[in-house]
């Protein structure tokens, strides 16, 4: 028995899905928002430094359930193994209402104008599938603004000369500086750089009926205990529910997108919270399950017209999986740099996002969020042993006297970095799990080395008595910044969705998550996911009225 039909079924209540549910329901459409996780909050992570989304040694409290959701990871030597969400190779993003926006650090970056034209500017390196976006920064600009004002962003990007033009400033001022900010800012200015206050989806003053940040150390990886961090779970999803037209259904795992004989989607089938198979008819299907699960769902939705999976005629679904290469420099100081004032990350520069000699792209650089003691254990410079008396001494001496500076390097997409359906391993419901394989492009590592060297210069100028860098390897990139698996483009032979993020092959299936990103910017991607979801939703609403 099918459920009563809706105008749109939205799959995944994360960044993109939350926005889509709100935009469609406020436009008068009946929406079913399906989420495989549940509502989550600080009562789930309980400020547990060993069981949160950043350090998940004892579990990932915001899901997914490890007993039901394995994946298979293939390393770059071809060795494969079954992995669980707490494992780095799983590339987990949270599975709960709000998804990563519940537990993220909440940096709210607009990509730069150049980030949408990477191939035109730099040319494609051999072994990469680097391409331009089919849209420009200007197409996204109004929606960046909408995301910033509807969800709430604090910060001050005015001192940054590199950002693209914007019509309106940020709705909230930055939080007051912490000690690392005071140390790093004058150093950056002496180097001739342009430091500024990181834009964050975090209340610095009361906004949207909720109070400001209380500056605690339990930020990235945790749900905010005073609800000052702005995700879709406490902004657009409640707004969608308030319309009376959007029903949020948790514990719902979508099985497949169903088509009629002419190739139009008629809705989805899903396993509900009691593991019963349900059929939800819908006029529109909006997939926002994250770059990995969105690709998996399309690949698993096979039919006579789409024997290799939905939208996969040219074997493109699941390709070009990317996240960010994160190089880091750490500086040790002979005075206290740690003041226990959260969220920690406070100051950034965009002087090395583009225009780096001989390199394609780059990264924003910022100081790190507060590191809990367990996260500092592995931060030892070359030559300091990893255990024993000397390691303990190092911890004691430098925990409060160190600053890490890091940045998300924009990666060169790789065709063989991909999501497939695993031929053997199945999940709790009997569906083939995601199989992740491939690795980074070597040029991304070159860029990472350059960016790390700049971070090191910054720390030395700030008075560090010792510095070193940590450069990522060629392992597959994904994680919370996972993107790229269902690329947006004008040509159906080289892209999965069109510029409005509608499948080239199916008229009424749209994607509104980072899977459509052609490249992923030298920034944390969430504001771009949110802005693009606003843009795609506007297109869906317009289409409906046409």
């Amino acid at each position, binding site marked *: 028995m099918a459920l009563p039909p809706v105008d749109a079924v939205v799959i995944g209540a994360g960044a993109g899905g939350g926005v889509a549910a709100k935009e469609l329901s406020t436009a008068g459409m009946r929406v079913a928002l399906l989420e495989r*996780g*549940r509502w989550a909050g*600080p*009562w789930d992570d*309980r*400020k*547990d*430094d*060993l*069981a949160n989304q950043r350090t998940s*040694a*004892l*579990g990932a409290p915001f*899901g997914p*359930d490890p*007993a*039901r959701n394995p994946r298979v990871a293939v390393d770059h030597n071809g060795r494969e193994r079954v992995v669980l969400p707490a494992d780095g190779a799983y590339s987990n993003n949270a599975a*709960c209402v709000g998804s990563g926006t519940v537990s993220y650090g909440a940096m709210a970056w607009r990509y730069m104008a150049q980030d949408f034209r990477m191939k035109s500017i730099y040319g494609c390196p051999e072994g990469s599938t680097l391409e331009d976006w089919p849209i420009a920064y200007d197409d996204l600009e109004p929606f960046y603004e909408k995301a910033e004002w509807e969800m709430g962003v604090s910060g001050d990007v005015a001192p940054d000369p590199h950002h693209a033009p914007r019509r309106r400033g940020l709705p909230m001022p930055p939080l007051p500086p912490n000690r690392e900010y005071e140390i790093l800012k004058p150093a950056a200015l002496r180097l001739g750089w342009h430091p500024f206050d990181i834009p964050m989806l975090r209340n610095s003053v009361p906004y949207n009926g909720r109070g400001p940040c*209380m*500056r*605690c*150390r*339990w930020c990235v990886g945790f749900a905010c*205990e*005073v609800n000052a961090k702005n995700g879709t779970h406490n902004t657009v999803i409640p707004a969608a529910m308030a319309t009376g037209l959007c029903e949020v259904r*948790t*514990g719902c795992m979508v099985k497949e997108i169903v088509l009629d004989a002419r190739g139009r989607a008629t809705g989805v089938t899903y396993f509900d919270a009691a593991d019963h198979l349900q059929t939800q008819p819908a006029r529109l299907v909006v997939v926002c399950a994250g770059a990995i699960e969105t690709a998996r769902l399309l690949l698993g939705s096979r039919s006579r017209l789409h024997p290799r999976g939905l939208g996969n005629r040219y074997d493109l679904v699941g390709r070009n999986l990317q996240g960010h290469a994160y190089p880091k420099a750490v500086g040790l100081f002979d005075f206290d740099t740690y003041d*226990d004032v959260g969220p920690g990350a406070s100051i950034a520069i965009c002087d090395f996002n583009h225009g780096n000699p001989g390199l394609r792209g780059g990264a924003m650089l910022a100081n790190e969020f507060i590191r809990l*003691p*367990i996260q*500092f*254990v592995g931060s030892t410079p070359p030559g300091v042993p*990893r*255990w*024993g*008396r000397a*390691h*303990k*001494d190092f*911890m*004691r001496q430098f*925990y*409060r006297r160190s600053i890490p500076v890091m940045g998300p390097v924009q990666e060169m997409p790789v065709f063989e970095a991909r999501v497939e359906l695993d031929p053997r391993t199945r999940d709790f419901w009997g569906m083939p799990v995601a199989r992740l394989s491939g690795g980074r492009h070597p040029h991304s590592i070159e860029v990472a080395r350059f960016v790390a060297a700049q971070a090191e210069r910054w720390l030395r100028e700030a008075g560090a008595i010792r510095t070193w860098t940590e450069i990522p390897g060629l392992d597959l990139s994904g994680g919370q910044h996972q993107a790229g698996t269902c690329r947006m483009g004008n040509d159906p032979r080289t892209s999965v969705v069109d510029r409005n993020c509608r499948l080239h092959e199916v008229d009424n299936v749209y994607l509104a998550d980072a899977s459509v990103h052609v490249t992923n910017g030298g920034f944390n991607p969430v504001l771009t996911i949110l802005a693009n979801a606003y843009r795609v939703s506007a297109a869906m609403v317009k289409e409906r009225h046409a």
Partner: protein
Amino acid sequence: MPKPSRRSFLAGALAGTAACRRDDGARLVLTAQEARTLEAICDQLIPDDQDPGAAAAGGVIFIDRQLAGPYRRHQRAYREGLAMADALSRKMFGKRLADLPAEQRLQVVKRLERDARPFFQLVLAHTMQGFYGSPRHGGNRDYVSWRMLRVPASPVRGRIQYDLRSRQE
């Protein structure tokens, strides 16, 4: 997300019992001998100096509790690894690891690092987690490591008393 199964509920209840009698030496997974050997390893990984080390801070309690919970999958690795550590110790110095003086323990642990790397890495990661992680899981007794690092109590405690709840776990 499903409700906790009967098994995970029972495991939680058992872990609670362990915390209550943590000082009488009762353990959930490890035998008394295994616990002594593990303690001798922890003692080398994070030794006592002017601040207590991992053994004194409850490192074995932490690992034993996790072996009954999230680290159930590592039980066999610990069984075999700890037996191997004692065998190695006997071979090198004629005694079990726990019966050696510190200097010789260190030599055995260094040999483990070289020759039994997967097991060594496991114990090292778990010992660090126990010592530098929250005391709620059985290690870092009385926040010894956080006090050593000069991590202050949270300036705002928050509305939910996680610490109080975890004391009773």
